[in-house]
Structure formats: C-alpha cells, structure tokens
C-alpha cells in the first residue's frame, strides 16, 4: 500500500460514510444534469419549431379562429382541418412586401393503417414551399412525386412501406428528422396527392369542402421581403383579404416562448436551490467527517504528514467521492429523463427535442466538473479548518 492508496482505503473501508457522501453529490449532479437536459430540450424544441416554420406571417381561415388549434397542431400533433379557397394564395402573393407565399393543405386521417392514432396529413407545394421542403430535403432530395409521402419520425411506417389513407395507397419515400413538435407525427405529400386524398376523404363524408370542386388550402406561409415591415404586411393582409386571419408567426409562439422562459427560469432557480442546499449539506457533512476523524488526522500529522499533505489527503477523498457521485448522478438522471422523453413532452405540452449528443456530452462533462468543484470546495473548507487545529491538543483530547 502506497500513500496514494490511503484515501482509497479510507473510502472503501468506511462504506457507510462514503455512501452518504457519494449519495449527496449524486443528488446534486442528478438535479443539475436532469434539469439542464429538460430545459435544453425545451429550448431546442422551440428553436426547431421556429426553424421549421421559418415564416414571418401565417394566413389561415378566419373560421379556424385558430391560433389555438393551429398552435396545438404544430406543438402537440393534434389533428385538425380548416379550409379556405385557393384564390387566397393569389391575393396574398399580390400584397406589397410579400416575397414568398407558400400554401399548405391539411387533412386529418382516420386511424390509418400505419398508426394507432390519427395523423395530420399536410400537403405542400414543392415549387413554393420554404418551410417543410428544406426539412424533407435533409432526408429525401428528389422531391415528392405523385402518391409519395414523407413521414415524421414518430409515424411508425418506414421508408419503402405503403401507407393506406382513406383507401388510397401512398408510398413512403422519406422519414424526417425529429423536431420535437407535432410535426413529427404528420405525413407530408404534394398538392396533387393531397387533392386525391381530399377527394377520397370527401367520398367517405369526412371533410366538408368550401366549394365542391374548387381548390382549397388550409394556410399560407408568408416570407416578407427584406426591408418590409412584417407588421404592416400582416395588417394589410387582415384588412384586404376577406374571411382570413393573418397572424405573425412570432406572436403565435410568444405565449409558448413565455411558458418556456417561465419553466426555464423555475428550473434554473430549482437547480440553484438544490446546488446551494447540496453545498451546505456537503459543508456540514465534511465538517462532521473532519470532526469525527480529527484524531486520525492528528495521528497522521504525528507520523510526519504536513498540513499540505493532510489537505491533499482530504481533497483526494473528496475528489473520489465527488467523481463517483457525479458519474452516478449523471447516469441516474440520464436513466430518469431519456427513456421518458415522450411522456415529458406529452405532460409539458411544449416542443421538446433532446439536445444533440455533443451538447449532452458537454452538459454531462460540465455537471461532473461543477459537482467536483462543489465537493472540492467543501473539502478545501474542511481542510482549512483542520489546518488551524493543533494536533497536539487534539491528541490530548479524549486520550
């Protein structure tokens, strides 16, 4: 046994004491890592949603009222369908300040062959679309053909499989990357396919068309020209096109963003409180440990260990406990968060997208380092207190 083994032996041969210290540090690490992952996932979910929308203004039927249902459709995958005449698209394109106007048409499936639940079917115009198309092109670059669909990552059908929607057979050509939003449970097709699906749905009496035989769309995504004021364009659209509501995309998600900020703030406060509490508990625990062992430390001084050597001994024990606790805490938090991503997403009702592996590794590494730092701080404080103790006096006490 060398001197370096002394901290290890001290920890291994006092398993109860060691377990208590490791448990405390694990609690700290788990709360910090788990909280950070949840907050990071919410933040990434919202960023992902904003990126997917990419529009300044969304125009939808006034009857859809439907900031709320439209939002739920995007956030939670709630299915819905509302329609307006396709001529709205031309009116929007004619508005001053509009650079691109891309239509989308929605249709809710019955319980499709693919899925145990209804899915949202979204028809896009590949020639004009600037929101979904770039996302589809990440997985499939050839463009959606007739009766071809791209599916969100949570739709169970895989590439190459056939998806039956209203008795129409569609061919899955792409599975899209996760967004953490309701878009992950949607199916995407071009407008020609959507017309066939709408007709099939109508034949089953599922949808009601505005005007039988005319083209319909559900929403128009608008990107304004550089230099144009989105607010002015939005006002113009609301004032000049009848029976539609134009909503600024940013305002649509303001309350979501506010909720997210509230949750993030609460999580940060909670993490801070747990951190402070854990630091205080660790300081008390180490102070108690030092008190319990001060005769042992005095004996080490007697045997030739310097104050600095004693500090190193305490810091080595602290570092080992902190490292073990941090790794266990991060592991436990990972087991408590990652397998339940869907449940958390459902419960929170906000876009939720787990951070990328690199970010997770950074978070885990940061948590380990921060936990170690707290442990070492508590150990250094205990060592500093001990260094002021006279070993001779300690040896006399209780002799």
């Amino acid at each position: 046994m060398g001197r370096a083994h002394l901290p290890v032996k001290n920890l291994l041969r006092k398993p109860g004491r060691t377990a208590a210290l490791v448990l405390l540090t694990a609690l700290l690490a788990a709360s910090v890592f788990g909280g950070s992952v949840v907050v990071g996932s919410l933040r990434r979910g919202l960023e992902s949603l904003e990126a997917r929308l990419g529009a300044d203004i969304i125009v939808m039927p006034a009857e859809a009222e439907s900031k709320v249902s439209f939002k739920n459709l995007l956030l939670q995958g709630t299915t819905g369908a509302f329609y307006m005449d396709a001529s709205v698209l031309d009116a929007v394109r004619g508005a001053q300040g509009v650079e691109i106007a891309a239509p989308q048409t929605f249709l809710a499936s019955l319980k499709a062959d693919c899925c145990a639940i209804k899915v949202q079917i979204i028809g896009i115009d590949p020639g004009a679309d600037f929101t979904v198309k770039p996302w589809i092109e990440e997985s499939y670059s050839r463009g959606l053909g007739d009766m071809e669909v791209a599916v969100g990552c949570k739709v169970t059908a895989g590439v190459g499989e056939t998806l039956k929607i209203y008795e129409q057979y569609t061919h899955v050509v792409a599975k899209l990357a996760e967004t953490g939003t309701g878009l992950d449970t949607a199916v995407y097709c071009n407008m020609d396919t959507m017309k066939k699906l709408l007709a099939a749905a109508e034949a089953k009496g599922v949808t009601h068309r505005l005007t039988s035989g005319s083209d319909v769309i559900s929403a128009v995504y608008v990107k304004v020209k550089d230099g144009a004021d989105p607010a002015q364009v939005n006002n113009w659209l609301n004032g000049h096109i009848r029976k539609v509501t134009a909503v600024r995309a940013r305002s649509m998600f303001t309350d979501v963003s506010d909720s997210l900020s509230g949750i993030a703030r609460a999580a940060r406060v909670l993490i801070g409180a747990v951190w402070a509490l854990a630091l205080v508990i660790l300081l008390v625990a180490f102070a108690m440990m030092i008190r319990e062992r001060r005769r042992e430390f005095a004996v080490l001084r007697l045997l030739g260990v310097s104050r600095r050597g004693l500090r190193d001994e305490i810091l080595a024990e602290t570092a080992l406990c902190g490292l073990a606790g941090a790794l266990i805490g991060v592991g436990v938090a990972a087991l408590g968060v990652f397998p339940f991503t869907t449940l958390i997403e459902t419960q929170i009702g906000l876009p939720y997208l787990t951070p990328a592996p690199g970010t997770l590794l950074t978070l885990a590494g940061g948590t380990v380092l921060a936990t170690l730092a707290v442990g070492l701080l508590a150990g250094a404080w205990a060592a500093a207190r001990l260094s002021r103790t006279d070993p001779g006096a300690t040896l006399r006490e209780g002799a």
Partner: protein
Amino acid sequence: MLRAEDISMRYFRKTGQANHFYAVKGVSLALCPGEVTILTGRSGSGKTTLLHMLAGLLTPTGGRVLLDDTDLYALPDTELSRLRGAKFGVIPQGRSAVDTLTVLENVLLPGQLRGERGDAEGALRWLDALGIAHLKDARPAELSGGELRRMAIARALAGNPEVILADEPTGDLDDENTEAVLTLLRRRAAEAGKAVLLVTHDSEALPYGTRVYRMECGALSAL
C-alpha cells in the same frame, strides 16, 4: 541529541483572575542517544505538553527545541513534518490507530508516508516482540486498549527513529506487558543508541530510566 532550551507554553484563558497560565515554564532538557529519560508528575503538570513540544507538534511560546543543530520550529511545516516522520517515533496517549487500516498496515504507515516501500518483515518482528503478531490482519476496532497501545509502540519503533517519545506507553498494559515494553524501550536506548523519553505515572518504570525528572506546575526538577 534533542535539546529543549528554556521552552515555555503559555495558554490564554477566558475566565479566572489571571488571563493566562503556563503549562510549561522555562524548561531545559536534553535527550541523549543511549539514554532513557523518564518524566513523571501529577496529571496536568505539563508532561504531555512538553512531549508534544519536543516532538515538533506544538510550537512553544518561548524557547527553542533543537535536534542536533536544527531548530525545529524555525523549519517550515513541510520540512518539520518530514523531519518528524523520519527522526521521531512518537507514542501518543490513548487511541492513535488509523481505523481503516489493519494492524500491520498501521505499523507500515510511517514508512509509506515517507515514500518507502514498507518493510513488512521488520514490522512483523516488532509486532511479534510485543506479542500481537497474530493480530496483524485485525482492524483497530477489534483490538483491546492494551493491544492498541502495543500496536502504537510497534509503529513508533518500526521506523528506526533516532528519538522515541512515549506518552504513558504502559497505561493500558498488564504487569507482564508493562515489563516487556519497558525492557524493549531500554534496549532500544542501550543497544541501538536511541534517545528515549518516557512520560509515565507508573512508578514501576522509574528503575528503567537513565535519568528521572519530575514535573510540577510546568517546571522540571531532577529526582
């Protein structure tokens, strides 16, 4: 040779008429190689305080402690600690075991703290000489008070120190073991040329001393 030159230890106290008192006052003492110096006196007379000052564990408020020509308390803590580990074998009062180590590991500990590999055979010889070799793998919690004392003595002797400072080394021992320990300490002085200081209440120890001193109220007098 270890010498104390006019050393004192003054403590402050919060109550009482005087605001300080001397545990040790103006003591000069030399511990010579080959000699057993015995220090006796009543409880609270300053014996242990003097021993701790001689061991480099307690900085005197006055005077100097010299090992050969080195002033212990002029050294920085790291050097003083290294010197204490290398040259001194201290047997403190009461329990002094590191609880997480076995008896043998406790005896080997001083050498390992000095960075040595550890002479297990030598350590076992000391444990055997003190009659506790069979307990080498036991943990301190499993030992009696007397066995712990003997473990502490073995640990102090195993490093072959120049100066042995023993504070009530026979306190928990029966007559047979008391005689064995005292004989062992005297032989370390006589045969190995060690300087031994033995602080004791035990009158049986007095015949083993080359010189005997008595402490009273912090002052030293020869008997």
